[in-house]
């Protein structure tokens, strides 16, 4: 969440603007970042508190299986003893906190003998790779399309771009993913007699990335393009832009220096949460393309009531979201000189 130091969230679209302070800008920035990082401690604490007691409220125990042979009571009792689940909940909570302070996030219940840290370290790089690549695609394409549509408002380019954006925003990504697999994998393999096709599953730093990255990017691209267009249109009508044109500046200068610098502020605000969303994994994309990422690991953990894994991933997600918002707030300083941080 976009929390300015010591103040409540002021809404995702509003940059944190705090009245100017004396002292060097770099110094106040350092203090701001340090305070925000310290603020993450209570945030994570409450995330653990809420998650811990909510997940224990969920019916079913980690040892109940989804049908078929169930473990006998004798085995269940031994498992509860093995993982300390026979202790009162508040004791389990305190023990978890104590261990978490020492960066020990426990053993997974589902994968016997594996630590939560190891499981996250196995899964997150996949998600992060795809998420970062998607982000690198979303920013230029989304912003580019949005600016193009705004500068040529009501032209054919505008209609085509916004038509695409509406299309991409209205199709759920599991449909897009499945469609891409059918066309670029199954049918392509059939037409070319398996000479050329995109792989339908697995993960690798090659053509395996194409379909997942595109599927993951389409909705944010559409969203970013529409937002950029609206914001740019808003900026174009400002008096200072008319002044810039009247001064006889070239189109390039007007667009880059005067329009973009102002129109991109709301876009930057949304890119923080978008980035956090991308690198915490999409269960849909990870399932359709069978990517062993953190999104799938999280959903598996929830459905199998793997308590330590649920807590571990939730903590990771909350830290990522907090950091992404912090980065956005810091970026304002560089984009908008009016912004001062405390």
């Amino acid at each position: 969440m976009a929390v300015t130091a010591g103040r409540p969230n002021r809404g995702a679209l509003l940059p944190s603007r705090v009245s100017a302070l004396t002292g060097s800008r770099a110094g106040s920035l350092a203090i701001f970042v340090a305070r925000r990082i310290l603020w993450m401690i209570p945030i994570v604490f409450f995330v653990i508190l809420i998650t811990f007691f909510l997940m224990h409220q969920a019916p079913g125990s980690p040892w109940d299986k989804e049908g078929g042979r169930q473990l006998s009571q004798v085995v269940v009792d031994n498992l509860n003893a093995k993982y300390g689940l026979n202790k009162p909940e508040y004791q389990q909570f305190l023990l978890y906190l104590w261990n978490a302070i020492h960066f020990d996030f426990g053993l997974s219940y589902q994968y016997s003998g594996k630590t939560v840290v190891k499981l996250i370290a196995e899964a997150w790089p996949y998600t992060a790779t795809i998420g970062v690549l998607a982000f690198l695609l979303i920013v230029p394409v989304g912003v580019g399309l949005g600016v193009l549509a705004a500068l040529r408002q009501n032209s054919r380019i505008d209609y085509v771009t916004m038509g695409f954006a509406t299309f991409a925003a209205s199709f759920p990504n599991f449909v897009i993913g499945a469609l891409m697999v059918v066309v670029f994998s199954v049918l392509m393999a059939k037409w070319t007699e398996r000479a050329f096709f995109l792989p339908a599953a697995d993960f690798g730093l090659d053509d395996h990335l194409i379909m997942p990255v595109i599927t993951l990017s389409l909705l944010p691209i559409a969203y970013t393009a529409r937002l950029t267009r609206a914001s740019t249109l808003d900026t174009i009508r400002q008096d200072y832009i008319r002044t810039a044109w009247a001064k006889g500046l070239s189109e390039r200068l007007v667009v880059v220096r005067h329009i973009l610098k102002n129109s991109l502020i709301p876009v930057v605000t949304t890119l923080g949460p978008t980035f956090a969303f991308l690198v915490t994994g999409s269960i849909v994309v990870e399932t359709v393309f069978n990517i062993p990422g953190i999104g799938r690991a999280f959903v598996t953990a929830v459905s199998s009531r793997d308590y330590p894994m649920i807590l571990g991933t939730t903590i990771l997600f909350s830290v990522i979201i907090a950091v992404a918002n912090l980065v956005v707030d810091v970026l304002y300083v560089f984009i908008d000189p009016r912004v001062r941080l405390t």
Partner: protein
Amino acid sequence: MQRGTSIRAVALASAGMFLVAACGGGGGTTSENLAPPDKQILRANPGTEPNSYDPTQQTYSYEAAVGAQAFESLLKPRADLSDVQPAAAKSYEVSSDGLSYTFHLQPNAKWSDGKPVIASDWVYGYKHLLNPALAAGYVDPFFDGTIAGAQNYGSIDVSSASAIDAFLAGLGLSAPDNNTFVIKLQHPAAYFKWVVTLWMAAPIRKDIVESAAGGSFPSNDTTKPLIWANDVKTIIGNGPFKVSEIGAHDHVTLVPNTGYWAGGQKLQQIILYFISDGNTAYSKYQTGTLDIINVPTADIDVVRGDAVLSKQAHLLPQLTTFWMSFNTTKPPFDNPKVRMAFAKSIDRIKLTKDVRHDTDQPIQSFIPKGMAGYDTSDNAQSYDPAAAKKLLSDAGVSASTLNAFKLLTRNSTGSKTINQFLVDQWNTNLGLNIQLDVIDSKTVTSRIRKGQFDIYGPDGWGADYPDQQDWFDIFTSGSCHSLNWGCATLPGYDDLVKKANTELDQNQRNKDYLTAQKMLIDQAAVAFIYQSYEYDLIAPYVHITNSAFDYQYLPGSQSYNTAYITAH
């Protein structure tokens, strides 16, 4: 692959075993058709990663997919499932009182690191499985009425190393010499030869476990004894294949164990994928990057209509039966007439045709086709709406009483569509208005464990081993709230099953189990509905021998050590 294999498959299923893939050319000799070693790769999809690579900690079929290749148990089922045959033990003897089993190990057996497999590895493996602190999920068949001393499994204080040590030392497991492994039983159990076929009853190397753990550890340690199974380098087994690479949560690769006593493995790589979405696996099969898949239900008719794919499809029987449970502790379901009325108002043929796409087959009895004890002569539960209605009126139960009950349903597409069909049958045929209660699967499990339901299903059982004991124990009163969810208590049933379990004369056992099955059917302990069949695609160049006992979605998995790929 030949035309009509799937028809043959069904016809031969009664014999328990059948050949799936006749080789491409002219049958008989195959060496000229064999693909070169670099093409001897089999790619299949158990769908989920093992929760552990330590076989003693495994419970699921998708775990056996790896565990049963990397490790080999003492005996294994014969191809026709009629009896056991040698595996890691080349022979075994049972003492005349039925209490002592002596296994003579294969003299040339080697671990995948080249060391010989000795009897003390077996003792260590069985103790690892039976250590209550490690809480192995599948341990029940080993302490429940079988291994001497293990009956105390449930009463050991798992925090006390000395209590665990005393328990483990008192187990009836010994190694009189390097090639002999002796197991003593609590009382005679004719089915024990089947228990030792279970893949989690594997030998484990003490030196490897301890070096991975960084030294020896007390027996109440719950984490150190399992560390070895997290690293490919220390997953050393005695099976025909060894784990060579783990692509975490994506796939595992197996390669031949060159020291395997029988040798002769032709496959140079088995890649088992963890693709949870059936549609993704189906797409991958169509691009030629998976060789064996289970066809997603929604695509069954597409495959049947496809000129190419339909020839690669196989309908394979599973040793799995499904049924509906009634909460017999609650009136009016304590009345067998009411239960029978429900059982007799299910059109099972329509169910399997319309809902299960004609894959699963109707069944009105307990033991599935393909294993000892299959008998369909008792058709008391057959579809007869008129008789069902009469049973209800004889029982004097009104529709309004029954309408208050709900059918507890797991929130999965399969369960929902089957149960929607079933309530529709009951409502139409019995003039009722029963509703579904669809909830998240874990919650359903916790409810049935506490007996909080009226009607629940479909619930099923897949054979752990093809002996009736594995099945009939389910409906004993002792299994109330653990497998016998409806807590059916049939007069005389428990004693009869206990007698059959300990009886040494196989003919007498078969007779007793048949009587027990008749009790289950005639008193409608549950309503049996269908035996499940898998509809799988197998690439034409894959040569495997299939068995009804193969692991789920892995046709041929009992015979990977003889499987091969033909030139393509």
